[in-house]
């Protein structure tokens, strides 16, 4: 027997089958139906939008990250998620710019994967919202044929002509600024105006259930967010019937995408199980407060970013009790 080939590693000598790339690529796979739903509602524009974001994310990662870091799949997720938060007709050059910003300032400047405090996709989204407030709130109506090119996809970089497509407000915008409701059934199916990934709430939910079942997503975050939003909005709706009810709240806007795919980002959410619940409840409260009383129709992005900032403190406050350190002394 040849002993030259024997390796020596530290214990434990075996490990579970899960790896970081495996988790990341499962998240990517679970987002494929969401992308397809976006394509169903917004046609080829949606695919162009998402593809641009993913390619920009991976290229930026390639240029700024360590060799091989692309393979871990995290840049692809950032690109996918950012793409899904944009309107179908958003100029592609802005998409590329925002995604590059997301990778560089959302992740790499912090030290790369695992080090960032804020969700990179939301950092990119916040940047785009600040830089291009008109373009990012120009929502094309779903439909118009698969090959219809919405809005100003191919606007020349650094220019942004006035919107020329058929547009419609989002359900949240309609409610906030015009006092009009939207049928819950339309919200659930997704045939409303909005970002690419906002509309197909049920498909997003299915992806979340799959990831939770595989153990790649901690159910505590989405469940606590959705439960908090439903409970709070039910109370508010009961007191003031002009305010939206629970179902409208959870199926409108970016809440489902945010609760299932953004708030659950392992890097930027608390590590303890108790902390995840605190985190989710905090996001839920902020979402309701911003939507009901704030100046903006939507508040998921700011709610998550705010709670991202609190994550280190939540972690510190929710450390588990170490075995054998019960306060009652045993003699």
């Amino acid at each position, binding site marked *: *027997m040849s*002993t030259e*080939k*024997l*390796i*020596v*590693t*530290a*214990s*434990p*000598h*075996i*490990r*579970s089958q*899960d*790896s*970081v*790339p*495996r*988790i990341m690529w499962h998240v990517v796979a679970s987002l494929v139906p969401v992308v397809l739903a976006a394509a169903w509602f917004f046609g080829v524009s949606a695919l162009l939008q998402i593809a641009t974001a993913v390619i920009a994310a991976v290229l930026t990662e390639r240029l700024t990250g360590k060799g091989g870091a692309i393979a*871990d799949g995290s840049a692809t997720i950032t690109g996918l998620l950012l793409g899904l938060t944009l309107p179908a007709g958003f100029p592609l050059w802005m998409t590329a710019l925002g995604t590059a910003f997301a990778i560089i300032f959302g992740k790499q400047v912090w030290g*790369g*994967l*695992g*080090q960032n405090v804020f969700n990179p996709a939301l950092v990119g989204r916040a940047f785009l919202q600040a830089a291009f407030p008109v373009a990012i709130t120009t929502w094309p109506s779903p439909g118009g044929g698969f090959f219809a090119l919405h809005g100003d996809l191919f606007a020349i970089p650094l220019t942004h002509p006035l919107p020329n497509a058929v547009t419609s407000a989002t359900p949240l915008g309609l409610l906030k600024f015009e006092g009009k409701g939207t049928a819950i059934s339309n919200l659930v199916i997704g045939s409303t105006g909005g970002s690419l990934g906002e509309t197909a709430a049920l498909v997003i939910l299915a992806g979340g259930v799959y990831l939770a079942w595989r153990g790649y997503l*901690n159910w505590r975050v989405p469940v606590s967010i959705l439960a908090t939003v439903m409970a709070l909005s039910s109370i508010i709706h009961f007191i003031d019937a002009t305010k939206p009810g629970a179902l409208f709240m959870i199926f409108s806007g970016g809440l489902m995408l945010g609760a299932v795919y953004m708030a659950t980002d*392992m*890097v930027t*959410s608390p*590590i*303890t*199980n108790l902390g*995840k619940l605190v985190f989710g409840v905090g996001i839920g409260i902020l979402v309701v407060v911003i939507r009901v009383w704030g100046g903006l129709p939507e508040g998921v992005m700011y709610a998550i970013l705010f709670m991202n900032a609190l994550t280190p403190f939540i*972690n510190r406050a929710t*450390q*588990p*009790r*170490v*075995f*054998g*350190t*019960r306060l009652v*002394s*045993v*003699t």
Partner: protein
Amino acid sequence: MMSFATGFRHGVHPPEEKGLTSHVPIRRMPYPDELVLPLRQHAGKPAKVCVKAGDRVERGDVLGEADGFMSVPIHASAAGTVVDVGWWPHPDGSMAESVRIKVDRFAPQVARPRMVPHWEGLTTQQVVKAVQDAGVVGLGGAAFPTHVKLAPPKDHHVHTLIINGAECEPYLTSDHRTMVEYPGRVHFGIRVMMRAMGVLKCVIGVEKNKPDAIEALRRTVPDDLDVAILPLTVKYPQGAEKMLIHAVTGVEVPSGKLPVTVGVVVQNVGSVSAIAEVFETGLPLIERIVTVSGHGLRRPANLIVPVGTKLRDLLAYCDGVTAEAAEVIIGGPMMGQALANLDAPVIKGTTGVVVLEKGETREAAVYPCIHCGRCLDACPVFLNPSLLGDFARTQQYEQMVDLHLSDCMLCGSCAYVCPANIPLSQLFQASKLALRRAQPAVA
């Protein structure tokens, strides 16, 4: 309040892999040509050598004497001639002073008559002395001298003896086979321990995946002893002392304290069986049951192996390793020690030898921590391995002390589940070592 009657929270479920040997009866391995007996085979001080090259020794003769109370002697596991007393590879990866014996192939290998006295009528002190003289140590891996556990500090009342038959490490089945094939010997060892310690109650904890062992032990419980067999949840590390005590008594051993503070003493199944065998045969501890297993081994087996048998000879007896064999581990794959030098011998604490194939080892890319929290859900003592790992890598050892690094028992659960493949156990072991070096001999 939830009940944890038969288990503990957290922990992991590595593939058990016990089917390779769980039904293979224990067989005796023939004597190899040469034996290597390190003087350091137990926790505490190494034995002091008392033979020299050229000496003729009989089976059971003392090669090294105990050096104080926290030490045990080392005995010759076969008759033969001392070739050499010198440095030799030790299964912990280091070099250790060892006695090398050329086995006399024509000797009948019968020992001198009755080296260990009959136990009936002996006082507690005499039993403790006899167990020490016989070189008995914990056979679960740590090799803590058994006689020390028989004489707990006077200021603590021990009310329960707990026998550890959990055997939660993957692959290992030596305790399992011992319980199935020698249940009477286990009960005899328990009787000796209970009598010597004046303990009236005993609980044997066995993981539920060994129903035949539970059945065999139940069938053979002596009528005059209060011995209960408690089936335990199948989970790693169920056999960790603190986890087992929690499962049996519902009490948490306080952080930094010994089990006697909650009135229990834990002993491994193999160790009580060794006590019984020592008093039955009159021979000191010179052989033990070893599980030799793994997909990288041609013929997995449970073997009675003379202490001092070289790994090379042991593996050869099992028809050798496969072409895909990649790593040889002393002990189980969760806490065992990998070894490249197969000249190292089986010692008293060697529970098993596992040969892993390529693809079963954890050789893979290491990623940054993504704070998934799986290690927190795995840690049986509720530490935060993720945070401890960050501090270990930046050498902030004092921070680790505040985070209860001392409660980490290096069970490897965190590193097992880590999707980033971060060697957390290794980091914690290194950190403990660094801290020990920084504060020499405080206690």
